[in-house]
């Protein structure tokens, strides 16, 4: 069933009546995702693309038995929406929204840990299990079903890598977009563990970038627990990167040596992870190990 989601996953879209929410709900429905409800307070009783809208997550979950929700709501309101989702009893919460205050994310994450819920994001493209379902905004057309698991801090760079894999004949089991914020829900480590346990995943691609230490922790885990081959790519591996400067993502900023791509690549290599310098090198690395 790949990881985290498959075609049986019932999904609620929080903010479905909004511009972003309705656009991506449509694209998820078209891909085959079971979008069973939308939630917009004050718009209960309406329908969007034939999907019923509820005023609250509680009503939506009670009516549909959904287990996942995806948030397309402006940043100032994400904290409340996430708390509502957590209280409603779902177990997979994906936040696409960019610009959520770090303190809000940290508070959401704490609640999520207490309740044993998986949080993906914020500021992320979401997840896709090609050929089955997707939650979020990863373009379905570039994916194909296969056995490469992808976990990434990036959005469009991930598309680039997925596309290269697809063109080279390597389909994907599940792609997980962790998001570009410094505090995020699920990270590389949890994703690697999921892929390790998933019989449909044979190869794991890890797409990191400058800033933070998630990649280093992942490398440690690969040494200790992961038996499947892991491939790595780190964005920001050139000498052009300026320390202390944020490169687009709030989390992509180098403070001291540990956040540099060079250091991350060194530690990834040390852990036996095959690293690539360009996105197109990744399928070649997979080919080499087969």
């Amino acid at each position, binding site marked *: 069933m790949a990881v985290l989601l498959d075609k049986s996953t019932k999904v609620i879209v929080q903010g479905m009546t909004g511009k972003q929410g309705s656009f991506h709900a449509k694209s998820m429905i078209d891909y085959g995702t079971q979008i069973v409800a939308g939630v917009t307070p004050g718009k209960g009783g309406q329908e969007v693309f034939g999907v019923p809208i509820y005023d609250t997550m509680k009503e939506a979950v009670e009516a549909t038995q959904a287990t996942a929700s995806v948030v397309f709501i402006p940043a100032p309101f994400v904290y409340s929406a996430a708390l509502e989702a957590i209280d409603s009893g779902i177990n997979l919460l994906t936040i696409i929204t960019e610009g959520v205050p770090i303190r809000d994310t940290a508070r959401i994450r704490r609640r999520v840990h207490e309740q044993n819920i998986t949080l993906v994001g914020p500021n992320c493209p979401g997840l896709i299990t090609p050929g089955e379902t997707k939650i979020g905004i990863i373009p379905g057309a570039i994916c194909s079903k296969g056995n490469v698991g992808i976990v990434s801090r990036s959005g469009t760079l991930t598309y680039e890598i997925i596309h290269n894999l697809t063109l080279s004949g390597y389909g994907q089991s599940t792609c997980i977009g962790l998001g570009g914020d410094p505090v995020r829900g699920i990270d590389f480590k949890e994703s690697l563990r999921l892929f390790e346990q998933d019989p449909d995943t044979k190869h794991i691609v890890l797409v990191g970038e400058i800033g933070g230490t998630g990649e280093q922790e992942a490398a440690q885990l690969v040494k200790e627990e992961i038996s499947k081959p892991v491939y790595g790519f780190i964005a920001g591996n050139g000498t052009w990167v300026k320390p202390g400067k944020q490169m*687009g993502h*709030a989390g992509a900023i180098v403070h001291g040596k540990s956040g540099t791509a060079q250091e991350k690549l060194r530690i990834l290599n040390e852990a036996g992870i095959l690293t690539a310098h360009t996105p197109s090198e990744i399928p070649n690395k997979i080919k080499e190990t087969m």
Partner: protein
Amino acid sequence: MSMLYEFEGKLLFKDSKIPIPRIKIYTDTESIKQFAEEIGSDTMMAKGQALAGGRGKAGLIKKVTTETAEEYSKSIIGRDHKGKPVAAVMLEELVEITKEYYLALMLDNKSGSYLMLASTMGGVDIEEVAENHPTEIHRTLLPIDTNPQTYHFMELGKKMGFKAKTLTQFASICVKMLKMAIKHDLTLVEINPLVTTPDDKLIAADSKVVIDGNSYFRQPSIAALQSQRDQHTKLEFEATQAGISYVQLDGDIGIIAGGAGLSMATCDLLEFYGSSPANFLDVGGGANDEKVYKALELISKMDIKGIFVNFFAGITRCDDVARGVVSANKKLNIKVPIVIRMIGTKDTEGIKILEENGIHAYNKMEPSAKKIVELVKGGN
């Protein structure tokens, strides 16, 4: 994320009742006289205000008198310090210091909690202390939704060697720092050095305060400060206003990309193929033609030898990107070579629009990166 000037941080400290020396911003001769009267002394510190560390070593902090203060202030205002200008000079009363400490509160990304860091080795670079004297750094981790109380910090204070009233004052300063961080969405509140005076009182002799840029919508007063703040690099300010992530670099090829990771990977590729990026630029998801036009306008103001546009369109539409490029190419009179790569949503339409206007477009990232490097090198 953006940093406040020392004096702004100190004013926040004052609001939060964290003790600071008396300060005044130098404006003219009169301001120096007034301050000397206020503190009852002709001698004072003059501290250049710049958004980068190491000001002391760079000669931006100096003991002055009412005689020398003005000349010194004028001499450093506007000076460049690690790429940042000295925006002002802050006058500060002299404080008799018995010992210097380090104290910082940060929102720790890894744990998602607040982390209070303290060290008896203050006034020096904390990363050096961490590297060479790791046991001299003490930590207290607090849940993100903590309601801070002084007792949470008494153990930390004891590890720092504080006793009696100094101990309770230390704990109280910690509580105030945390409340201040919560109130203003700060990700860092650093006091280096925190100093003791001969009567065993603690005073914040410096301030480094960083606010989470995502919180501006609920921090209007700080957001207002920040919009001026970013002016120090004119292009970066313009970019921020347009909702574009832009970082000025030193290379030859101006780039425009959609997505932070892809933009970084684009910079990497140019270097990989032997050239160098003149900037990082991420127009963000769902950029329209106007934003692409604006981005091209920005980079056309730099001294560059070529332009590389790279889009893997998910939410973004390639026809929008194409229209932005065509319009910029016409109006901005761009004379350096441009290579455009686009793939994804509406790429056929986008490529058609470009070719109708005589611009060739690629759909693979690596060959197109190679191409712009070749064009730029050939043009040398």
